[in-house]
Protein backbone atom coordinates (compact mmCIF):
# COMPACT_ATOMS: atom_id res chain seq x y z
CA UNK A 1 0.00 0.00 0.00
CA UNK A 2 1.03 3.52 -0.62
CA UNK A 3 1.31 4.41 3.02
CA UNK A 4 4.27 2.13 3.58
CA UNK A 5 6.39 4.43 1.48
CA UNK A 6 5.79 7.18 3.96
CA UNK A 7 8.62 6.85 6.38
CA UNK A 8 7.88 8.82 9.48
CA UNK A 9 6.63 12.15 10.61
CA UNK A 10 9.34 12.52 13.18
CA UNK A 11 12.20 14.80 12.33
CA UNK A 12 15.78 13.61 12.11
CA UNK A 13 16.15 13.67 15.89
CA UNK A 14 13.04 11.58 16.42
CA UNK A 15 11.00 14.45 17.79
CA UNK A 16 7.28 14.02 17.45
CA UNK A 17 5.67 16.77 15.46
CA UNK A 18 2.08 17.96 15.66
CA UNK A 19 0.04 19.98 13.26
CA UNK A 20 -2.91 22.21 14.04
CA UNK A 21 -4.86 24.58 11.83
CA UNK A 22 -5.33 28.19 12.96
CA UNK A 23 -8.18 29.93 11.20
CA UNK A 24 -7.10 33.19 9.61
CA UNK A 25 -10.38 33.72 7.79
CA UNK A 26 -13.23 31.28 8.11
CA UNK A 27 -15.38 32.71 5.29
CA UNK A 28 -12.62 32.36 2.73
CA UNK A 29 -11.33 29.18 4.35
CA UNK A 30 -7.82 30.45 4.83
CA UNK A 31 -5.88 28.68 7.55
CA UNK A 32 -2.43 28.81 9.02
CA UNK A 33 -1.07 25.33 9.71
CA UNK A 34 1.19 25.28 12.74
CA UNK A 35 3.72 22.50 12.70
CA UNK A 36 5.33 22.35 16.10
CA UNK A 37 7.08 20.15 18.58
CA UNK A 38 6.24 20.05 22.23
CA UNK A 39 8.73 19.67 25.06
CA UNK A 40 6.57 18.51 27.94
CA UNK A 41 9.39 18.65 30.49
CA UNK A 42 10.41 22.20 29.72
CA UNK A 43 6.76 23.08 29.00
CA UNK A 44 7.77 24.70 25.77
CA UNK A 45 6.46 24.55 22.25
CA UNK A 46 8.69 25.16 19.29
CA UNK A 47 7.37 26.14 15.92
CA UNK A 48 9.00 24.06 13.20
CA UNK A 49 7.10 25.26 10.15
CA UNK A 50 4.15 27.36 9.08
CA UNK A 51 1.95 26.65 6.06
CA UNK A 52 -0.87 28.53 4.44
CA UNK A 53 -3.90 26.37 3.61
CA UNK A 54 -6.57 27.83 1.34
CA UNK A 55 -9.67 25.66 1.01
CA UNK A 56 -8.01 22.35 0.27
CA UNK A 57 -4.77 23.60 -1.15
CA UNK A 58 -1.53 24.11 0.66
CA UNK A 59 -0.29 27.34 -0.87
CA UNK A 60 3.04 27.78 0.86
CA UNK A 61 5.17 25.06 2.35
CA UNK A 62 8.17 26.86 3.79
CA UNK A 63 8.36 29.47 6.50
CA UNK A 64 9.88 32.07 4.22
CA UNK A 65 7.09 31.61 1.67
CA UNK A 66 4.51 31.93 4.40
CA UNK A 67 6.02 35.16 5.71
CA UNK A 68 6.18 36.40 2.14
CA UNK A 69 2.46 35.69 1.75
CA UNK A 70 1.65 37.52 4.96
CA UNK A 71 3.73 40.53 3.94
CA UNK A 72 1.90 40.77 0.63
CA UNK A 73 -1.33 40.81 2.67
CA UNK A 74 0.07 43.47 4.92
CA UNK A 75 1.17 45.71 2.07
CA UNK A 76 -2.27 45.38 0.52
CA UNK A 77 -2.65 47.90 -2.31
CA UNK A 78 0.96 49.05 -2.02
CA UNK A 79 1.86 45.74 -3.53
CA UNK A 80 2.04 45.49 -7.26
CA UNK A 81 1.96 43.02 -10.11
CA UNK A 82 5.18 41.42 -8.84
CA UNK A 83 3.17 39.89 -6.03
CA UNK A 84 3.55 36.14 -5.95
CA UNK A 85 0.40 35.13 -4.13
CA UNK A 86 -2.02 38.05 -4.33
CA UNK A 87 -3.10 40.24 -7.20
CA UNK A 88 -4.22 43.81 -6.54
CA UNK A 89 -7.58 44.37 -8.21
CA UNK A 90 -9.92 47.29 -8.31
CA UNK A 91 -13.69 47.10 -8.54
CA UNK A 92 -15.89 50.20 -8.28
CA UNK A 93 -13.01 52.26 -6.87
CA UNK A 94 -12.45 49.69 -4.12
CA UNK A 95 -9.16 47.89 -4.05
CA UNK A 96 -9.11 44.21 -3.22
CA UNK A 97 -6.64 41.39 -3.26
CA UNK A 98 -7.32 38.36 -5.42
CA UNK A 99 -5.74 35.13 -4.43
CA UNK A 100 -3.61 33.40 -7.05
CA UNK A 101 -4.35 29.72 -6.65
CA UNK A 102 -5.71 26.71 -8.52
CA UNK A 103 -9.20 26.80 -7.10
CA UNK A 104 -12.67 26.81 -8.55
CA UNK A 105 -13.67 30.08 -6.92
CA UNK A 106 -12.23 33.56 -7.09
CA UNK A 107 -11.19 34.57 -3.62
CA UNK A 108 -11.10 38.29 -2.93
CA UNK A 109 -9.67 39.71 0.26
CA UNK A 110 -10.74 43.12 1.49
CA UNK A 111 -8.52 45.51 3.41
CA UNK A 112 -10.07 44.73 6.76
CA UNK A 113 -9.82 41.03 6.17
CA UNK A 114 -6.16 41.40 5.27
CA UNK A 115 -5.53 43.40 8.42
CA UNK A 116 -7.36 40.86 10.56
CA UNK A 117 -5.44 37.98 9.02
CA UNK A 118 -2.13 39.70 9.58
CA UNK A 119 -3.10 40.33 13.18
CA UNK A 120 -4.00 36.69 13.78
CA UNK A 121 -0.74 35.63 12.12
CA UNK A 122 1.20 37.65 14.64
CA UNK A 123 -0.96 36.46 17.53
CA UNK A 124 -0.43 32.86 16.49
CA UNK A 125 3.22 32.94 17.58
CA UNK A 126 2.38 33.77 21.17
CA UNK A 127 3.40 31.04 23.52
CA UNK A 128 5.66 29.42 20.96
CA UNK A 129 9.37 29.63 20.55
CA UNK A 130 10.06 30.95 17.07
CA UNK A 131 13.83 30.67 16.96
CA UNK A 132 13.69 26.98 16.08
CA UNK A 133 11.73 27.58 12.91
CA UNK A 134 14.51 29.78 11.59
CA UNK A 135 17.36 27.57 12.68
CA UNK A 136 15.81 24.18 12.29
CA UNK A 137 12.89 24.40 9.95
CA UNK A 138 11.23 21.08 9.32
CA UNK A 139 11.50 20.40 5.61
CA UNK A 140 8.34 18.80 4.34
CA UNK A 141 7.97 16.23 1.64
CA UNK A 142 4.53 15.33 0.27
CA UNK A 143 4.74 11.94 1.96
CA UNK A 144 5.57 13.34 5.37
CA UNK A 145 2.96 16.06 5.11
CA UNK A 146 0.34 13.53 4.01
CA UNK A 147 1.07 11.35 6.98
CA UNK A 148 1.10 14.32 9.31
CA UNK A 149 -2.29 15.45 8.02
CA UNK A 150 -3.62 11.90 8.32
CA UNK A 151 -2.46 11.43 11.87
CA UNK A 152 -4.00 14.70 12.94
CA UNK A 153 -7.22 13.83 11.11
CA UNK A 154 -7.06 16.77 8.76
CA UNK A 155 -7.52 14.74 5.58
CA UNK A 156 -11.08 13.65 6.28
CA UNK A 157 -14.03 15.93 6.73
Amino acid at each position, binding site marked *: *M*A*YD*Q*IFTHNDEFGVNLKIIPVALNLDKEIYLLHIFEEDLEAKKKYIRNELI*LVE*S*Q*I*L*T*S*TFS*DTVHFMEELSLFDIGNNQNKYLDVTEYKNTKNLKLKY*DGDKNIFISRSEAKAMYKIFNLAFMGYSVASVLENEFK*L*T*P*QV*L*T*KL*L*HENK*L*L*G*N
Partner: protein
Amino acid sequence: MFNSISILTIAIIIAIVFYYSYQQKQQKVKLMILKKEKQEKVEIEKKYQEEQKLLEIEKNYLRELKEKKNNIIYKLQTDKVKYSFYNSDRDLKYSLDYLYKLIVQNNLWINEPFHSKLYELLILLNENEFMIFDRNSQPIKMNIRDHNNQISVSHAYEVFDTIDIIEFTIRDTINDILKYKKYDAQNIILAIFILLLKKSQHYLSKNIFVEIVENLLKDYKYSNEIKNIINLINKENSELSFIKNSVKKAYQRTDTHPYTDYEVSRQLLLDVKLPQKFLQAI
Protein backbone atom coordinates in the same frame (compact mmCIF):
# COMPACT_ATOMS: atom_id res chain seq x y z
CA MET B 1 1.12 -157.51 29.41
CA PHE B 2 3.61 -155.69 31.43
CA ASN B 3 4.76 -154.02 28.34
CA SER B 4 1.43 -152.91 27.35
CA ILE B 5 0.82 -151.59 30.83
CA SER B 6 4.14 -149.81 30.87
CA ILE B 7 3.53 -148.45 27.47
CA LEU B 8 0.19 -147.30 28.65
CA THR B 9 1.63 -145.70 31.74
CA ILE B 10 4.35 -144.15 29.72
CA ALA B 11 1.79 -142.99 27.31
CA ILE B 12 -0.30 -141.69 30.13
CA ILE B 13 2.71 -140.06 31.70
CA ILE B 14 3.62 -138.61 28.40
CA ALA B 15 0.06 -137.53 27.95
CA ILE B 16 0.08 -136.04 31.39
CA VAL B 17 3.38 -134.34 30.72
CA PHE B 18 2.06 -133.09 27.49
CA TYR B 19 -1.05 -131.99 29.12
CA TYR B 20 0.85 -130.11 31.79
CA SER B 21 3.20 -128.67 29.37
CA TYR B 22 0.29 -127.70 27.21
CA GLN B 23 -1.40 -126.15 30.15
CA GLN B 24 1.71 -124.30 31.09
CA LYS B 25 2.01 -123.11 27.60
CA GLN B 26 -1.56 -122.06 27.68
CA GLN B 27 -0.93 -120.27 30.92
CA LYS B 28 2.13 -118.63 29.48
CA VAL B 29 0.15 -117.57 26.50
CA LYS B 30 -2.55 -116.28 28.78
CA LEU B 31 0.01 -114.45 30.84
CA MET B 32 1.54 -113.06 27.72
CA ILE B 33 -1.84 -111.96 26.55
CA LEU B 34 -2.53 -110.42 29.92
CA LYS B 35 0.82 -108.71 29.87
CA LYS B 36 0.17 -107.49 26.43
CA GLU B 37 -3.23 -106.32 27.44
CA LYS B 38 -1.74 -104.57 30.42
CA GLN B 39 0.86 -102.98 28.26
CA GLU B 40 -1.74 -101.97 25.78
CA LYS B 41 -3.83 -100.54 28.56
CA VAL B 42 -0.89 -98.61 29.86
CA GLU B 43 -0.08 -97.42 26.40
CA ILE B 44 -3.64 -96.37 25.78
CA GLU B 45 -3.66 -94.55 29.05
CA LYS B 46 -0.41 -92.89 28.15
CA LYS B 47 -1.78 -91.96 24.79
CA TYR B 48 -4.91 -90.71 26.40
CA GLN B 49 -2.94 -88.63 28.84
CA GLU B 50 -0.78 -87.28 26.09
CA GLU B 51 -3.84 -86.44 24.10
CA GLN B 52 -5.31 -84.78 27.14
CA LYS B 53 -2.15 -82.80 27.56
CA LEU B 54 -2.20 -81.80 23.95
CA LEU B 55 -5.81 -80.86 24.27
CA GLU B 56 -5.07 -78.77 27.27
CA ILE B 57 -2.21 -77.08 25.50
CA GLU B 58 -4.49 -76.46 22.58
CA LYS B 59 -7.18 -75.13 24.85
CA ASN B 60 -4.70 -72.87 26.57
CA TYR B 61 -3.40 -71.72 23.26
CA LEU B 62 -6.91 -70.97 22.02
CA ARG B 63 -7.73 -69.17 25.21
CA GLU B 64 -4.60 -67.13 24.92
CA LEU B 65 -5.47 -66.38 21.34
CA LYS B 66 -8.90 -65.30 22.40
CA GLU B 67 -7.49 -63.08 25.05
CA LYS B 68 -5.05 -61.68 22.57
CA LYS B 69 -7.83 -61.11 20.13
CA ASN B 70 -9.72 -59.13 22.70
CA ASN B 71 -6.67 -56.99 23.43
CA ILE B 72 -5.75 -56.18 19.84
CA ILE B 73 -6.85 -52.69 18.72
CA TYR B 74 -7.37 -52.74 15.05
CA LYS B 75 -6.31 -49.46 13.38
CA LEU B 76 -9.24 -47.75 11.76
CA GLN B 77 -8.98 -46.03 8.43
CA THR B 78 -8.06 -42.74 10.03
CA ASP B 79 -6.05 -41.18 7.21
CA LYS B 80 -7.57 -37.82 6.52
CA VAL B 81 -9.05 -37.26 3.12
CA LYS B 82 -6.79 -35.08 1.03
CA TYR B 83 -8.01 -32.44 -1.36
CA SER B 84 -6.06 -30.57 -3.95
CA PHE B 85 -5.69 -27.02 -2.74
CA TYR B 86 -3.35 -24.20 -3.59
CA ASN B 87 -0.62 -23.40 -1.14
CA SER B 88 -2.18 -20.23 0.15
CA ASP B 89 0.09 -19.99 3.20
CA ARG B 90 3.03 -19.49 0.92
CA ASP B 91 1.46 -17.41 -1.84
CA LEU B 92 -0.80 -14.96 -0.04
CA LYS B 93 -0.78 -12.30 2.63
CA TYR B 94 -2.42 -13.17 5.91
CA SER B 95 -5.81 -11.61 5.23
CA LEU B 96 -6.03 -13.11 1.74
CA ASP B 97 -4.93 -16.47 3.06
CA TYR B 98 -7.73 -16.18 5.60
CA LEU B 99 -10.22 -15.43 2.82
CA TYR B 100 -9.04 -18.43 0.81
CA LYS B 101 -9.52 -20.71 3.80
CA LEU B 102 -12.88 -19.17 4.62
CA ILE B 103 -14.23 -19.54 1.10
CA VAL B 104 -12.55 -22.61 -0.37
CA GLN B 105 -11.34 -24.84 2.44
CA ASN B 106 -14.28 -24.44 4.78
CA ASN B 107 -16.82 -25.25 2.07
CA LEU B 108 -14.62 -27.60 -0.01
CA TRP B 109 -15.33 -25.53 -3.08
CA ILE B 110 -12.57 -27.05 -5.17
CA ASN B 111 -14.62 -27.28 -8.33
CA GLU B 112 -13.15 -25.70 -11.41
CA PRO B 113 -13.15 -23.12 -12.89
CA PHE B 114 -14.28 -21.32 -9.72
CA HIS B 115 -11.33 -22.45 -7.61
CA SER B 116 -8.68 -21.23 -10.05
CA LYS B 117 -10.50 -18.00 -10.89
CA LEU B 118 -10.81 -17.10 -7.23
CA TYR B 119 -7.14 -17.86 -6.66
CA GLU B 120 -6.22 -15.76 -9.66
CA LEU B 121 -8.08 -12.81 -8.12
CA LEU B 122 -6.45 -13.40 -4.75
CA ILE B 123 -2.98 -13.42 -6.29
CA LEU B 124 -3.81 -10.29 -8.27
CA LEU B 125 -4.75 -8.57 -5.02
CA ASN B 126 -1.65 -9.93 -3.35
CA GLU B 127 0.79 -8.72 -5.99
CA ASN B 128 -0.66 -5.25 -6.50
CA GLU B 129 -1.52 -2.50 -4.09
CA PHE B 130 -5.07 -1.59 -4.92
CA MET B 131 -6.82 1.11 -3.01
CA ILE B 132 -10.25 2.62 -2.90
CA PHE B 133 -10.65 6.38 -2.58
CA ASP B 134 -12.37 7.40 0.63
CA ARG B 135 -15.28 9.63 -0.33
CA ASN B 136 -15.27 11.28 3.07
CA SER B 137 -11.73 12.39 2.49
CA GLN B 138 -10.99 15.87 1.27
CA PRO B 139 -8.10 15.74 -1.16
CA ILE B 140 -5.54 18.35 -0.29
CA LYS B 141 -3.41 19.88 -2.99
CA MET B 142 0.10 20.61 -1.84
CA ASN B 143 2.54 23.08 -3.33
CA ILE B 144 5.76 21.91 -1.84
CA ARG B 145 9.34 22.85 -2.59
CA ASP B 146 11.36 19.75 -3.32
CA HIS B 147 15.07 19.17 -2.75
CA ASN B 148 15.93 21.17 -5.84
CA ASN B 149 13.92 24.10 -4.53
CA GLN B 150 11.36 23.55 -7.28
CA ILE B 151 7.71 23.83 -6.34
CA SER B 152 5.87 20.64 -7.21
CA VAL B 153 2.16 20.05 -6.87
CA SER B 154 0.84 16.83 -5.45
CA HIS B 155 -2.36 15.60 -3.87
CA ALA B 156 -2.99 13.91 -0.58
CA TYR B 157 -6.07 11.99 0.42
CA GLU B 158 -7.30 9.04 2.37
CA VAL B 159 -7.66 5.62 0.77
CA PHE B 160 -8.92 2.24 1.87
CA ASP B 161 -6.95 -0.89 1.25
CA THR B 162 -9.09 -2.88 -1.22
CA ILE B 163 -8.12 -6.09 0.56
CA ASP B 164 -9.49 -4.77 3.85
CA ILE B 165 -12.83 -3.88 2.27
CA ILE B 166 -13.17 -7.22 0.47
CA GLU B 167 -12.23 -9.10 3.60
CA PHE B 168 -14.73 -7.23 5.75
CA THR B 169 -17.54 -7.60 3.21
CA ILE B 170 -17.07 -11.32 2.70
CA ARG B 171 -16.59 -12.03 6.37
CA ASP B 172 -19.77 -10.08 7.08
CA THR B 173 -21.93 -11.70 4.42
CA ILE B 174 -20.54 -15.23 4.07
CA ASN B 175 -23.29 -16.80 6.19
CA ASP B 176 -26.02 -15.23 4.08
CA ILE B 177 -24.23 -16.12 0.86
CA LEU B 178 -23.92 -19.77 1.88
CA LYS B 179 -27.71 -20.03 2.01
CA TYR B 180 -27.74 -19.88 -1.78
CA LYS B 181 -27.04 -22.86 -4.00
CA LYS B 182 -23.38 -23.70 -4.41
CA TYR B 183 -22.87 -22.26 -7.88
CA ASP B 184 -24.90 -19.13 -7.14
CA ALA B 185 -22.97 -18.59 -3.93
CA GLN B 186 -19.67 -18.93 -5.78
CA ASN B 187 -20.76 -16.42 -8.38
CA ILE B 188 -21.82 -14.00 -5.65
CA ILE B 189 -18.38 -14.28 -4.06
CA LEU B 190 -16.67 -13.55 -7.37
CA ALA B 191 -19.10 -10.68 -7.99
CA ILE B 192 -18.04 -9.05 -4.70
CA PHE B 193 -14.40 -9.26 -5.76
CA ILE B 194 -15.12 -7.75 -9.18
CA LEU B 195 -17.43 -5.06 -7.79
CA LEU B 196 -14.80 -3.84 -5.34
CA LEU B 197 -11.91 -4.19 -7.77
CA LYS B 198 -13.77 -1.95 -10.19
CA LYS B 199 -13.96 0.72 -7.51
CA SER B 200 -10.26 0.44 -6.83
CA GLN B 201 -7.38 2.33 -8.22
CA HIS B 202 -3.76 1.46 -8.65
CA TYR B 203 -1.90 4.69 -8.01
CA LEU B 204 -3.36 6.99 -10.64
CA SER B 205 -4.29 4.47 -13.33
CA LYS B 206 -7.95 4.50 -12.53
CA ASN B 207 -9.49 4.30 -15.99
CA ILE B 208 -7.21 1.62 -17.33
CA PHE B 209 -8.12 -0.39 -14.35
CA VAL B 210 -11.83 -0.83 -15.08
CA GLU B 211 -10.98 -2.33 -18.45
CA ILE B 212 -8.50 -4.70 -16.88
CA VAL B 213 -11.04 -5.90 -14.37
CA GLU B 214 -13.57 -6.53 -17.10
CA ASN B 215 -10.97 -8.55 -18.97
CA LEU B 216 -10.50 -10.75 -15.93
CA LEU B 217 -13.90 -12.32 -16.46
CA LYS B 218 -13.75 -12.47 -20.23
CA ASP B 219 -13.21 -16.20 -20.55
CA TYR B 220 -15.02 -17.21 -17.40
CA LYS B 221 -17.93 -19.59 -17.81
CA TYR B 222 -20.40 -17.62 -15.70
CA SER B 223 -19.31 -14.09 -16.59
CA ASN B 224 -22.83 -13.06 -17.60
CA GLU B 225 -24.27 -14.35 -14.36
CA ILE B 226 -21.68 -12.40 -12.42
CA LYS B 227 -22.54 -9.21 -14.30
CA ASN B 228 -26.19 -9.74 -13.46
CA ILE B 229 -25.33 -10.31 -9.82
CA ILE B 230 -23.35 -7.05 -9.74
CA ASN B 231 -26.37 -5.23 -11.16
CA LEU B 232 -28.56 -6.85 -8.53
CA ILE B 233 -26.21 -5.83 -5.75
CA ASN B 234 -26.26 -2.22 -6.93
CA LYS B 235 -30.04 -2.17 -7.23
CA GLU B 236 -31.80 -1.01 -4.12
CA ASN B 237 -34.30 -3.29 -2.40
CA SER B 238 -33.14 -6.31 -4.35
CA GLU B 239 -32.47 -9.71 -2.86
CA LEU B 240 -28.74 -9.07 -2.85
CA SER B 241 -28.73 -5.53 -1.52
CA PHE B 242 -27.49 -6.86 1.81
CA ILE B 243 -24.06 -7.00 0.17
CA LYS B 244 -24.19 -3.32 -0.69
CA ASN B 245 -25.11 -2.55 2.90
CA SER B 246 -22.20 -4.61 4.05
CA VAL B 247 -19.82 -2.73 1.75
CA LYS B 248 -21.11 0.52 3.24
CA LYS B 249 -20.49 -0.89 6.69
CA ALA B 250 -16.97 -1.86 5.61
CA TYR B 251 -16.24 1.75 4.63
CA GLN B 252 -17.33 2.87 8.07
CA ARG B 253 -15.45 0.27 10.04
CA THR B 254 -12.19 -0.04 8.12
CA ASP B 255 -9.18 2.14 8.75
CA THR B 256 -8.07 4.50 6.04
CA HIS B 257 -4.52 5.13 4.98
CA PRO B 258 -2.96 8.36 3.78
CA TYR B 259 -1.93 8.45 0.17
CA THR B 260 -0.12 10.99 -1.92
CA ASP B 261 0.25 10.81 -5.66
CA TYR B 262 3.77 12.15 -5.29
CA GLU B 263 4.92 8.60 -4.78
CA VAL B 264 6.56 6.69 -7.57
CA SER B 265 3.89 4.38 -8.85
CA ARG B 266 4.67 0.72 -8.89
CA GLN B 267 4.14 -1.43 -11.90
CA LEU B 268 0.84 -3.17 -12.28
CA LEU B 269 1.39 -6.92 -12.22
CA LEU B 270 -1.35 -8.55 -14.20
CA ASP B 271 0.20 -11.74 -15.53
CA VAL B 272 -0.96 -14.07 -12.86
CA LYS B 273 0.63 -17.47 -13.15
CA LEU B 274 -1.31 -19.94 -11.11
CA PRO B 275 0.91 -22.15 -8.99
CA GLN B 276 0.41 -25.90 -8.79
CA LYS B 277 -2.17 -27.35 -6.52
CA PHE B 278 -1.16 -30.03 -4.09
CA LEU B 279 -2.98 -32.57 -1.98
CA GLN B 280 -3.64 -31.38 1.46
CA ALA B 281 -5.66 -32.67 4.36
CA ILE B 282 -7.73 -30.25 6.34
